[in-house]
């Protein structure tokens, strides 16, 4: 029972973590809460759905298509809605992000209707594996494996490549990075692309896990992923992973203990409690105030 719930929680939590990474990376670089991020995740789920249902491609190819489409979408949104606002107050950019979010979700509702849609059957053959008393589906294992691979690749990109170094420099100090010859605009575009690709992968995986893709799936998932990013310490990449997993596991545990009608509140209750004890999140950097 415990092991079973743990696996359920980790599977759900790794999808939260995938979305949370996008929030945290964007925040780390331009201190913007990108509220349209949840919508990108929704678009990713839809692209994956159409790739498997209409183009009839393999599941992995569908996920790659979704990631590429969302990468472009993320970069496009940044160029249109955030770049003109980079010099103005952060609240304006926040409202702009909310505008994009409303725009995308109503566009999806118009194009795809209000009903939830499922992935075609047999996209990914689901088998149940019994380990001890726990029943684990291959789908859950797939989700955990893909999330792990993506997160390890992300760590590699951020810490071992030149563009990753540029990202870290930009997030450390935007102006100094620009003075050092880093093309800051390019770095920001790249960050949006990376985050959006991860969100798209999360969207396809969640679409498959719950077998439901709908125009409003981005809102709650986005809020929870944002909560996960803040829980881990916003701006910190390992923090987002930890926060996502923690939220996933506690949510599943809460449901298992019989609080299923409070499901959506559990994540936020944990968040509020953790922030009260550790005001900058679990792995967040301490803010030093200079007078």
């Amino acid at each position: 029972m415990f092991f079973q719930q743990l696996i359920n929680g980790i599977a759900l939590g790794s999808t939260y973590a995938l979305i949370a990474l996008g929030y945290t990376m964007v925040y780390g670089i331009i201190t913007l809460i990108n509220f349209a991020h949840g919508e990108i995740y929704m678009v990713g789920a839809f692209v994956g759905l159409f790739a498997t249902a209409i183009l009839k491609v393999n599941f992995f190819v569908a996920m790659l298509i979704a990631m590429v489409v969302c990468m472009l979408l993320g970069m496009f949104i940044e160029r249109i809605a955030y770049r003109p606002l980079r010099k103005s107050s952060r609240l304006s950019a926040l409202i702009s992000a909310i505008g994009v979010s409303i725009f995308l979700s109503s566009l999806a509702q118009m194009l795809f209707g209000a009903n939830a849609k499922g992935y075609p059957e047999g996209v990914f053959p689901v088998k149940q594996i019994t380990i001890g008393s726990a029943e684990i589906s291959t789908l859950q294992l797939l989700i955990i494996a893909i999330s792990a691979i993506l997160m390890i690749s992300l760590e590699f990109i951020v810490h071992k490549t030149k563009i990753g170094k540029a990202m870290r420099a930009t997030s450390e100090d935007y102006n100094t990075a620009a003075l050092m010859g880093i093309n800051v605009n390019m770095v920001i575009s790249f960050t949006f692309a990376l985050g959006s690709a991860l969100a798209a992968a999360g969207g396809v995986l969640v679409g498959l896990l719950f077998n439901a893709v709908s125009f409003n799936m981005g809102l709650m998932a986005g809020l929870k992923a944002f909560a996960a990013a803040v829980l881990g310490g916003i701006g910190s990449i390992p923090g987002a992973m930890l926060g996502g997993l923690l939220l996933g596991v506690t949510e599943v545990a809460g449901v298992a203990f019989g609080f299923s009608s409070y499901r959506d509140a559990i994540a936020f209750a944990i968040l509020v409690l953790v922030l009260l004890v550790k005001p900058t999140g679990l792995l967040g950097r301490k803010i030093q105030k200079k007078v």
Partner: protein
Amino acid sequence: MGDFLQQLIGYINPYYLQIFVNIGIGIILALGLNVVTGLTGQLSLGHAAFMSIGAFTSAVLTIKLGMPFSINLLLTGFITAAVAALIGLPILRLTGDYLAICTLGFAEIVKVVFLNLDITNRALGLSVPSANTEIPMPVVVWIVVLLTIVCVTCIHNSRFGRALMAVRGDEIAAEAMGINVTRYKVQSFALGAFIAGVGGGLYAHFMGYINPSDFGFLKSVDILSMVVLGGLGSITGSVIGATILSAAPEFLRFMANYRMLVYGGLLVCMMIFRPNGLMGGTSFTEIVLRALGRKPRLKAIMEQKNSELSRSGNGDT
């Protein structure tokens, strides 16, 4: 008096009346949030939670006790403010986006709790009986709007308001000047919640039906958009922003399905072309003075400086 007003209201097209009342309630809510976010500089993404608490408190007070509406509204406001103070005391220690996500989380928790309580009729929502007053609701709403505008204007120009602006400008500097930052933050939070609670009570009795899901994240975002669109900290701005955004969905109704699409696009465009809001850094009095060919007074200049400061300060907190 009541009958006369009722007759007068009867002449107005009910559809326009509803828009008019929605604008009024929007203004009340925006002014409440403007105290917290605009004046004190504390970003709240959960203002709808206080509206929700106010709406349900007021509805339950009417259903269970049937007290006069004016007392009901006052009591509702105080209860909401008390809840806000209780919540605010711990979470207002957080700054910037950590505070924002906490208020958001609080709003989600309130929504889920109300969806599971018997007294709020769970997910079915609550039918609210008509308010115990002779004056018709639209008039009540606009009386409250005027009262709120007067009160908030007085606060802006008071010692209390200046203390809040000091907190917005720089918390450490304010503290050094002997301002008890935590106390003022909690007070402004409670004041904003009081106004939101009253707005919620009016909303509940005007609509006649409330559901916890009506007060979700999108409602909070709606109110925040009004404040930011109008210009942070500007009362005139909040009124204009609330008017535009409350009326916009109605004027966009002819586009039927494209309505929310256009609304989202409009938010983005408005922010790109007027990033500091329509009335950012200026005020109604200042515009009138300028139109009359007089130089703005020193105070107006100081206020402008102050809001510029907070804007640039926002960038690195």
